[in-house]
């Protein structure tokens, strides 16, 4: 589904953050990307979603046979990539409902489908709302405006549920969540999982991985994936921290 080869990227045209990253994600898989602060985790998520501030200086990203890096952010979304933001943006004056209706219909248009009619949209919304345990009153309000941290993250997962992406990238979705919110968010993600889609969980801590169990755990350090293992690797990192990774790699 996703093949990243030797990806290199920098921010603001100077600071090299990704220094040759390789990753292969197949349908049905859950990958966790862990690493210390500043390793390049969020940069990877941003580069995949097409954030402007990052410049790709080398390597390639193939998504379902297409060159992902050539696409605009909206086309990536329309092709089935979804980024759950670490810090979801507050947009006054645009309700989540209106936003999702616009987004869904733009995605459908891209795929040559008719716009969804109002009853079908409402039905779908209701179903997905239950999935992520989010209240309708919240969705009628301005997008994320005045939402708590937990509400914002749940709204991200709600949007993910609505758009049914093939590849979801969760960028530090666990940050700022208490244990109940974490469970709700993780449940939502698990219910949306199937054999045809894939999830990349970007996280600093192991605790989210108690709920969203990864098939692979990668350690990102200094712009590269330096270690890959199973969920046991995450537990090891939780126990030992990242210093041994740093030590190993400074020797090498």
């Amino acid at each position, binding site marked *: 589904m996703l093949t990243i080869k030797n990806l290199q990227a920098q921010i603001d045209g100077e600071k090299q953050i990704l220094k040759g990253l390789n990753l292969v994600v197949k349908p049905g898989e859950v990958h966790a990307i862990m690493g210390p602060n500043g390793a390049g985790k969020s940069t990877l998520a941003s580069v995949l979603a097409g954030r*402007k501030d990052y410049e790709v200086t080398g390597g390639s990203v193939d998504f379902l046979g297409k060159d992902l890096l050539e696409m605009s952010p909206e086309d990536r*979304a329309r092709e089935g990539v979804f980024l759950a933001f670490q810090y979801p943006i507050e947009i*006054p004056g645009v309700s989540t409902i209106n936003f999702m209706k*616009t987004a869904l219909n733009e995605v459908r248009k891209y795929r040559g489908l008719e716009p969804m009619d109002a009853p079908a949209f409402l039905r779908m919304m209701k179903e997905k709302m239950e999935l992520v345990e989010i209240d309708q009153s919240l969705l009628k309000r301005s997008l994320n405006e005045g939402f708590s941290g937990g509400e914002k993250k749940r709204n991200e997962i709600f949007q993910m549920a609505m758009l049914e992406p093939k590849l979801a990238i969760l960028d530090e979705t666990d940050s700022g969540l208490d244990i109940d919110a974490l469970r709700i968010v993780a449940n939502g993600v698990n219910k949306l999982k199937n054999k045809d889609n894939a999830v990349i969980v970007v996280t600093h801590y192991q605790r989210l991985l108690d709920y969203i169990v990864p098939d692979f755990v990668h350690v990102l350090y200094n712009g590269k994936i330096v270690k890959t293992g199973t969920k046991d690797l995450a537990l090891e990192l939780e126990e030992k921290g990242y210093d041994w990774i740093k030590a190993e790699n400074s020797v090498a």
Partner: protein
Amino acid sequence: MSILQNKLSEDFKIAETNRINGSDTLMYSKQKEAFLNFEKTGFPTTKNEEWKYTNLASLLKEDFNISPSVTLTKKDIEGFLYPLEANTIVLINGIYSKELSSILSPTTELEIKELKHVDKSITEKYFARKTYSSNDGLSLINTAFSENGLFINVLKNSVLKYPVILYNFTDSRQGNILSQPRNLIVAEENSQAAIIESFHTIGSNTGFTNIITELVLKLNATVDYYKIQDDTDTSYHVGSTEILHEAKSTSSSTTITIGGAIVRNNLNITLDAEYCEAYMNGLYLLKGNQHVDNHTIADHAKANCYSNELYKGIMDDKSTGVFNGKIFVKPDAQKTNAFQSNKNVLLSKEASVNTKPQLEIFADDVKCSHGATIGQLDEEALFYLRSRGIGETQAKRLLLHAFANDVLERIKIEPLRDLLLAKIEERLK
């Protein structure tokens, strides 16, 4: 002295010699006084602090026809009329056209007549009041030529079912036109009304509208006032809306500016008695070389009043916006609540805006706040929308629409709001 200034002086003097019964009426004495002051001050220039950012020099150099009486037909104007049931008042080049106007409200609720036929007691108290703009050259010249002014009276205890719409047409088909509408609107005790002013230039020569509308709200009156400016790019507009609040009255004013080459709006609100409320809303949506300047004043003269102002602007291309919002809280105006906000979005590198909030507070037990912002469309917000599959153009439109909607949703007349929404949607395309 410019051609226009010369012409105005000559015209005034000719009219004076033609006057029957001499110069003894009260209204005339106010006109004469204004004229003499105009002779001294002349037109405003950018040296005047209040006109620092709005330069009328090249406009005022042009030659204008200043006493144009023309007739338009129903057919000429019908395309401009709003699709809502209303008391329709049509003015052509500043002159009331009775034939084209139609009043739905009964005469027991709404009275319309020429200003010169109004009872002296009203003229004395409410016509050409001294305000922060009344000594401006253009205000003076409007007052001097207010001969054809209109008086609109919403009678005591009347709640008008239909809004009053003043359609101001400038017919510049034959040449440059200066039109100077002048209105005095008095909402009597316990009355409620909506007043809409709208401006339309027909013809491709320069149409220059120099208007003053004085609005008086008596005890417990409520007036929603709208100024809709969607005029052509050969139209120029300078206007003052002077609102006087008597006790327990509530006004809202909403100024929506989409069209016009140069537009200057003065909105002066005097809260002259206790327990009044004034809401001031504005939206300017500019492109090309448009220049729009909103000067507003909330003058809290007495205690326990509330004012709330929200002006928003979107500037594209090489357009320029100006916002100057003053709040005065006089020594007597304890327990004042006054809020002001001006927010601007610049869509191009060459667009600009000057915003200046000014608070002068002479009382100690008050709550006042103001804020002004100038920015671009939020890149993060744009990326967020796009990352969900919404195209860039559509995402921009969504954000601008949300930005403008803050003001639009304050429009209480639904068909008017829908109409303006559609116009703005069209503009954002």
